[in-house]
């Protein structure tokens, strides 16, 4: 059976959603504190079990300590906030400067995004990584969707059968790895996806005119100011996410603007995305909100557990 010190530290670690290096260090520090307190009590003649129990009680509820440590590290500085929002700014800049048609510029930005995402992934998944990772995943998702609309035949069937499961496996793997770090970061990563989908759908992806390049580009040109505004709004939501201390407000600061932007894009286009478009957009939004929902379920579980522990 686990003793009260292990239970305390496990509960502390489970409640604390910060970089694993910092988490390990704080948990180790709490362990040494509990060790010292317990040792002092044992020297006064208290049994080991009782000493451990008293030491953990004196330290206070692990969830509360975790929440206070979280608030210390949750707020990033302005530099980090701007770097986290940078991919959204780059997309806005790309459209504002009309360089989105320039293959060279788009390729440079794509390569930089891939490079930064891979670098961050192998450097302990810092917080700034996740929006970059979202854009890194985007070509994988968009290719899968475009594949559905391509003329179908044997070649298509083979490509779809290989590509779609592979792409899904990659996406699920990255989302799971991100969620292991913190569910909230999965939503931060997925935030650009509903916005981009609502734009793609509004621009007619999936209808019979979509493959006519001129029609698509002409449609896009008229929407550029709105596209720029939507990505600037996404950047603002990302900055507020990084700068806000409290977890609850972080969730609100990320969810509400992203949902509002995605729905506004569809509405600005007079809801012309069609029923399948709405369904697809809804699915994106559900995927975006789910990590937060799971997180809040986890919190409720902890609250209930804590309440029942304290009444014992």
């Amino acid at each position, binding site marked *: 059976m686990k003793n009260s010190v292990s239970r305390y530290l496990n509960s502390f670690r489970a409640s604390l959603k910060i970089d694993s290096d910092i988490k390990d*260090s*704080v948990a*180790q*520090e*709490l362990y*040494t*504190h509990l*060790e*010292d*307190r317990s040792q002092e009590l044992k020297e006064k003649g208290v049994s080991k079990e009782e000493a451990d129990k008293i030491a953990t009680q*004196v*330290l*206070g*509820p692990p969830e*509360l*300590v975790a929440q*206070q*440590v979280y*608030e*210390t*590290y949750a707020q990033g500085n302005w530099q980090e906030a701007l770097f986290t929002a940078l991919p959204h700014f780059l997309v806005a800049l790309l459209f504002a400067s009309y360089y989105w048609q320039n293959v060279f510029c788009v390729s440079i930005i794509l390569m930089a995004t891939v490079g930064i995402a891979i670098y961050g992934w192998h450097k302990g998944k810092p917080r700034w990584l996740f929006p970059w990772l979202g854009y890194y995943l985007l070509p994988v998702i968009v290719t899968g969707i475009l594949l559905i609309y391509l003329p179908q035949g044997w070649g298509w069937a083979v490509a779809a059968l290989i590509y779609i499961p592979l792409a899904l496996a990659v996406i699920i793997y990255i989302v799971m790895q991100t969620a292991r770090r913190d569910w909230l970061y999965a939503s931060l990563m997925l935030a650009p996806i509903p916005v981009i989908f609502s734009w793609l759908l509004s621009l007619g992806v999936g209808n019979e005119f979509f493959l006519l390049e001129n029609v698509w580009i002409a449609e896009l040109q008229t929407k550029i100011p709105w596209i720029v505004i939507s990505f600037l709004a996404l950047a603002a939501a990302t900055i507020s996410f990084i700068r806000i201390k409290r977890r609850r407000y972080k969730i609100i600061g990320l969810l509400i603007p992203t949902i509002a932007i995605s729905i506004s894009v569809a509405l600005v286009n007079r809801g012309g995305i069609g029923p399948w478009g709405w369904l697809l957009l809804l699915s994106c939004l559900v995927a975006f909100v789910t990590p937060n929902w799971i997180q809040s379920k986890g919190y409720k579980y902890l609250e209930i557990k804590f309440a029942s522990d304290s009444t014992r």
Partner: protein
Amino acid sequence: MNYGRELLKGNTDSLLLCLINARPTYGYQIVKELEKRSDGYFQFKEGTLYPALHRLEKDNLIKGKWQMLPNGQQRRYYYITKKGQQALAKRLAIWQDFSAAVRAIIQPESI
């Protein structure tokens, strides 16, 4: 509202900086030292100590380093930084002015 607790809360950072400035120390030792020096007046909520220490470290006022004790156990010692010493000097000056002003009002005969 517990007035004593609110006062302690408002001055926790200064107390911690003061102790760490006297000599590098670790969490448990800080709790014991606070209790000893205040003759048991400061009963620190132990769980709140570490968030406070990490907040000071994040603000570059102190620096934590893992060190081995002679008995082989590891403890995270906190050292004050130059920025921390400057912040402490500023806070102490403000505190002394403040407490002198309060004393002058509540105990005018003692001046």
